């Protein structure tokens, strides 16, 4: 074995089980990789080195005693929007600088209970609002494939860490594309589960009807393994669905003969990068070659997903972020009076994009504008969901590009918020409908930047997505390419 950081999660698990490698050496090599490369990549906000080595030592002991928990000894990183007891959780915001939660998010707790080795917390756009991680109040995260490009966002740190071998897998969160888009930009697998499939307890709220945690990994099998652990009903989240969690590994057969794959014509638009269209169409041809039946479908309201999302998510955010009042946690700028303290704390504590979205959401909910904006958006959301309901009468899974373009240079979209929002056009519809979506590496553009194939399934139908993604991956080599780090 040359370099343990090049292993997939599934490979590492097998080697740990056979005791050909130890959790301690795996953790140490991963920490060494972080020490060597995170200066240039900037994926981590907090590295919990001591904790990682303690977790690894405990895992080695447990493995020796015959323990077989699914994440035992596996080094993972966690997006800084998921609460971790005693470990600073900033959401990429200065307003939460120094905040150490006194409870742990259920998704993280489940990974801990399954034996994970905690590496630390990953950079993100402030409060998960952004598509490039440039909105982090702390640092820049670069794309491991080209450090002059953004890693995508908001889970940019989670995607970059996996691409750079600085974690075997990570948790991100997705509200409008924040797992899938950085997955595509960094050439890794990013899986947004169905809304309600994974508990939101301890996931610091942005858009409560949309937020969902999910894995970023090197392979589809690795994503399935993490989903298996984090999925399921949680009494602490009333919107987590009490439905059975299937055995996701059963979907990893490599056989997609007869699978009906829908290709929505609305996802191939003017202005998309030709390399992205070409790679996506080649991937669809590959699915066909594997025995899938390709069906042209229509999701007619796709173009309305962007305005719907940028009304509903900021509206929910404007309510959720009211909790940052300088009293119970985080920053406080005390002006000596109540209203002044609120306004100064929030005015100085939040960054530019967060304030912009709070303003947008407040406006959309305000008297006189509610019906025209928020009410209207909720009605069109019904139509977006209906598009998918009707499509899944005809097909088992939908295949489309994850993004219209590959990773853009730093600063390219920062002066024009609408241009930045347009980066999410292909990921927003699945978010609005609450259905699962996954980005799988499907090629590179002429500048060597990764391209992602998006696979979308019906609500609580992650198996179809994993089945198609795994079969595609087995037939191609894209996921084996790794970036050359400086």
């Amino acid at each position, binding site marked *: 074995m040359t370099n343990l950081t090049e292993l997939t999660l599934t490979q590492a698990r097998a080697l740990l089980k056979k005791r050909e490698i130890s959790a301690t050496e795996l953790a140490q090599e991963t920490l060494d990789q972080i020490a060597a490369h995170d200066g240039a990549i900037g994926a981590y906000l907090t590295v919990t080195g001591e904790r990682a080595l303690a977790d690894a030592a405990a895992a080695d002991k447990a493995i020796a005693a015959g323990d077989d928990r699914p994440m035992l000894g596996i080094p993972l990183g966690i997006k800084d929007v998921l609460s971790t007891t005693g470990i600073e959780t900033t959401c990429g915001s200065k307003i939460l600088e120094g905040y150490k939660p006194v409870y742990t998010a259920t998704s993280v707790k489940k990974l801990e209970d399954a034996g994970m080795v905690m590496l630390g917390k990953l950079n993100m756009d402030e409060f998960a609002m952004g598509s490039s991680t440039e909105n982090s109040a702390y640092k820049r995260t670069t794309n491991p494939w080209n450090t002059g490009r953004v890693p995508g966002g908001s889970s940019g740190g989670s995607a970059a860490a996996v691409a750079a071998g600085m974690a075997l897998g990570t948790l991100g969160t997705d509200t409008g594309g924040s797992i899938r888009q950085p997955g595509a930009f960094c050439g890794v697998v990013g899986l947004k589960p169905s809304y309600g499939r994974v508990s939101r307890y301890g996931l610091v709220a942005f858009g409560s009807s949309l937020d969902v945690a999910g894995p970023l990994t090197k392979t589809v099998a690795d994503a399935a393994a993490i989903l298996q652990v984090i999925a399921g009903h949680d009494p602490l989240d009333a919107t987590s669905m009490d439905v059975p969690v299937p055995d996701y590994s059963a979907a990893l057969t490599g056989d997609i003969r007869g699978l009906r794959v829908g290709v929505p014509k609305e996802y191939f638009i003017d202005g998309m990068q030709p390399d992205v269209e070409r790679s996506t169409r080649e991937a669809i041809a590959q699915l066909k070659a594997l025995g899938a039946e390709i069906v042209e479908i229509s999701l007619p309201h796709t173009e309305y997903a962007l305005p719907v999302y940028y009304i509903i998510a900021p509206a929910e955010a404007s309510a959720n972020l009211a909790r940052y009042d300088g009293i119970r946690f985080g*920053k406080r700028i*005390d002006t000596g009076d109540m209203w002044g303290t609120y306004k100064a704390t929030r005015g100085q504590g939040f960054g530019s994009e967060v304030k912009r979205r709070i303003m947008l959401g407040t406006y959309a909910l305000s008297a006189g504008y509610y019906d025209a904006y928020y009410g209207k958006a909720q009605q069109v959301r019904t139509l977006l969901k209906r598009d998918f309901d009707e499509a899944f009468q005809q097909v088992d899974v939908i295949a489309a590009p994850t993004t219209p373009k590959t990773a853009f240079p730093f600063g390219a979209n920062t002066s024009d918020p609408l241009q930045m929002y347009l980066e999410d056009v292909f990921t927003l519809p699945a978010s609005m409908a609450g259905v699962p979506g996954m980005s799988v590496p499907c090629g590179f553009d002429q500048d060597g930047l990764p391209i992602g194939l998006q696979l979308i399934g019906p609500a609580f139908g992650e198996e179809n997505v994993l089945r198609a993604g795994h079969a595609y991956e087995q037939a191609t080599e894209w996921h084996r390419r790794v970036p050359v780090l400086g």
Partner: protein
Amino acid sequence: MELSREEVRKIAELAKLDLTEDEVDLYAGQLSHVLGYFRKLQEIDTSAIAPTASVLPLKNVFRDDVPQPALTPKQVTANAPQSLGDQFLVNDVFED
């Protein structure tokens, strides 16, 4: 959709955000641009369409009222920027 500086100040007041004069200018322009784009939704007739607040087929979710361990006051106030004993310290709410 043109949002005036006055309207921006009003929204900021509702949202309890202190904005600098530069921010008021910036947001007036940017929000006008984004809200203009939102007008696209008016193309669709939704008069017969029910709104979706949540995609899940859930209504009220009930559980039995069983006492469970809770955070201690010390834990609850652990992150407070200002506290006194186990209590949050706040500014006066009522004026003299």
